[in-house]
């Protein structure tokens, strides 16, 4: 088999992910979790995992089922496995959030749901890793963006493993002292593996390719992106492997984190230089909304990287970790996710619907499925709200933060509504919406893949 088919369950992942984002923003608007509650309070854990697993991880999994095949020009190992994985991940997330509510005293504390949550999540992510891993393995040697994804998947494995150890620790089910030592000091490693390893690395790899593709820029390879890859992978290895070693020796993990931060910052700087080059070397002078809005996400990443270095230098890192994580999660990863969703949903829907009749009948263009002018204002509101929210967190103004969360919620719902309109072809002129032989897309699944 050559070429790539549409991934059947990707739209379902996107839909669940957006629902989780809306729910998370509603909780922030309601003042649930950080900053009203401490960073490590169970309420904050509910919020953090709803966003990290529900929104960002499901978004990335859905995207990877489609784009790992694009990166390596070969079909996904299994187009069926994403469904059981989704069921396990959603069930696991639900159990995890209930487990945290048990810790918060909101619901009855026994029996502890956290071990069940960890088991379901680990099983779900294991299926995802197996499916993507088999696809990548069959395509060796990997092109550069796929190597970023491979490192990201290793980050996911580390994150889930650490998370599972914590879950069993909460339920006092850990069989060994070594695991208890990891549970005691492994939290920063869990965060770095998840936010830096899994989410950021995958976004970097996919970003290299998607930006090049959508802006008609050259595919990057060579010394600089390779150095970014190896330094970034090194940063993760130092943080996770080094951190675990220190934790087991019962020494502070801080030196490993500092060394990792230095390596990671250099890696991000090289990545930033590459991305600036991609924007400059593009052949397409007028770029589409998704690339414009991705630039704002990259700006958020650059800001977070600079802020990270400044805070470390000033010794304020741990005071402002909430601000940093918020800016990275919503400005960088969330912003990039929404921007790329706007293009990906339109493109995949176009291909699914009009692919069978291309060249035979006049068909709308991909851009006819969207109305960028209408979406632009919601994207701008989203970023303005995220940046205001970051400032509100930095200067400890909880009310301002809730207002910003409310604006994010409105913007997200409006962007999601645009995506639904795209999927339903609502913005295509009625006359050429469905030429004879075109396939009307279903909102949540892509059936054309079986054709």
């Amino acid at each position: 088999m050559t070429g790539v088919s549409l991934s059947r369950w990707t739209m379902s992942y996107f839909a669940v992910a957006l629902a989780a984002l809306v729910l998370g923003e509603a909780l922030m608007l309601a003042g649930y979790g950080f900053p009203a509650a401490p960073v490590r309070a169970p309420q904050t854990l509910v919020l953090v995992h709803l966003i990290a697993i529900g929104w960002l991880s499901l978004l990335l999994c859905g995207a990877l089922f489609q784009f790992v095949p694009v990166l390596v020009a070969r079909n996904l190992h299994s187009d069926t496995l994403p469904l059981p994985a989704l069921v396990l991940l959603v069930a696991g997330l639900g159990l995890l959030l209930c487990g945290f509510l048990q810790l918060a005293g909101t619901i009855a504390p026994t029996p502890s749901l956290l071990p069940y949550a960890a088991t379901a999540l680990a099983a779900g992510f294991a299926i995802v890793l197996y499916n993507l891993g088999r696809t990548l393995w069959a395509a060796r040697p990997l092109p550069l963006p796929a190597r970023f994804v491979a490192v990201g998947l290793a980050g996911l494995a580390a994150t889930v493993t650490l998370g599972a150890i914590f879950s069993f620790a909460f339920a006092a089910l850990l069989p060994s002292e070594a695991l208890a030592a990891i549970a005691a000091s492994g939290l920063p490693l869990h965060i770095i593996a998840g936010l830096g390893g899994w989410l950021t690395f995958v976004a970097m790899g996919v970003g290299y390719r998607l930006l090049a593709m959508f802006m008609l820029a050259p595919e990057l390879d060579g010394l600089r992106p390779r150095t970014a890859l190896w330094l970034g992978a090194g940063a993760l290895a130092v943080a996770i492997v080094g951190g675990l070693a220190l934790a087991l020796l019962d020494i502070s993990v801080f030196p490993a984190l500092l060394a990792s931060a230095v390596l990671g910052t250099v890696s991000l700087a090289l990545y930033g230089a590459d991305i600036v080059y991609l924007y400059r070397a593009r052949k397409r002078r007028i770029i589409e909304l998704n690339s414009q809005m991705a630039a704002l996400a990259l700006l958020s990443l650059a800001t977070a990287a600079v802020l990270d270095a400044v805070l470390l230098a000033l010794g304020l890192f741990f005071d402002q970790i909430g601000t940093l994580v918020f800016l990275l999660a919503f400005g960088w990863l969330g912003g990039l996710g929404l921007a790329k969703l706007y293009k990906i949903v339109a493109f995949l829907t176009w291909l699914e619907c009009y692919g069978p009749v291309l060249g035979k009948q006049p068909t709308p263009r991909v851009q006819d499925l969207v109305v960028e002018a209408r979406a632009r204002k919601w994207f701008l509101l989203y970023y303005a709200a995220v940046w205001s929210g970051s400032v509100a967190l930095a200067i400890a103004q909880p009310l301002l933060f809730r207002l910003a969360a409310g604006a994010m919620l409105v913007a997200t719902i409006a962007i999601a509504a645009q995506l639904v309109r795209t999927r339903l072809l609502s913005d295509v002129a009625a006359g050429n919406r469905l030429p004879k032989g075109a396939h009307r897309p279903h909102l949540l699944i892509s059936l054309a893949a079986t054709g």
Partner: protein
Amino acid sequence: MTDIFVDLDVRPILRDGGEPLSEIIQAVEALAPHEGLRLLAPFKPVPLFQLLGNRGFSYEAREIGEGDWEVLFHRSEAPAAADPGPLPKTTGAGDADGWPEPVRHMDSRDREPPEPMVLILAALETMEQGEVLSALLCREPIFLLPELTKRGHAWRGGFEPDGTTYRILVRNGGAHDAAA
């Protein structure tokens, strides 16, 4: 590799009611191997694309304002007269050995995906069974390939030695023959 373009502005000829085709052919025949033709016309000269395509030229057309067009014709990487030669990666249904010379040449390297896919599928609809289309792309057309197979066209493609240009040959309806 085309590095020099000879200019030919046919707008005055057409404005005076003349027929520029013979001038164009003359200019093309006078081109050295490394030369191309920069044609300025008051409309998009679509018939020329096929005509010069048959002589081994690919083209890049762009509107330069007020309805005028600039078209750069340069010799394709695959001259029509020459054997297509072994491609770095051969995949797809069928084997290009014994395929006829391409009747259509397309240079879609500067077009944004999925435009090349649309143009290739549209061109194939206008071609006879067994005819071959040659196209230059800036990346592997991963979503096009299954659609070609689904429609019964045979193809083979691969990156040129420069590593950035992907060349694909598609034989219209060829898969039926290959399967037979």
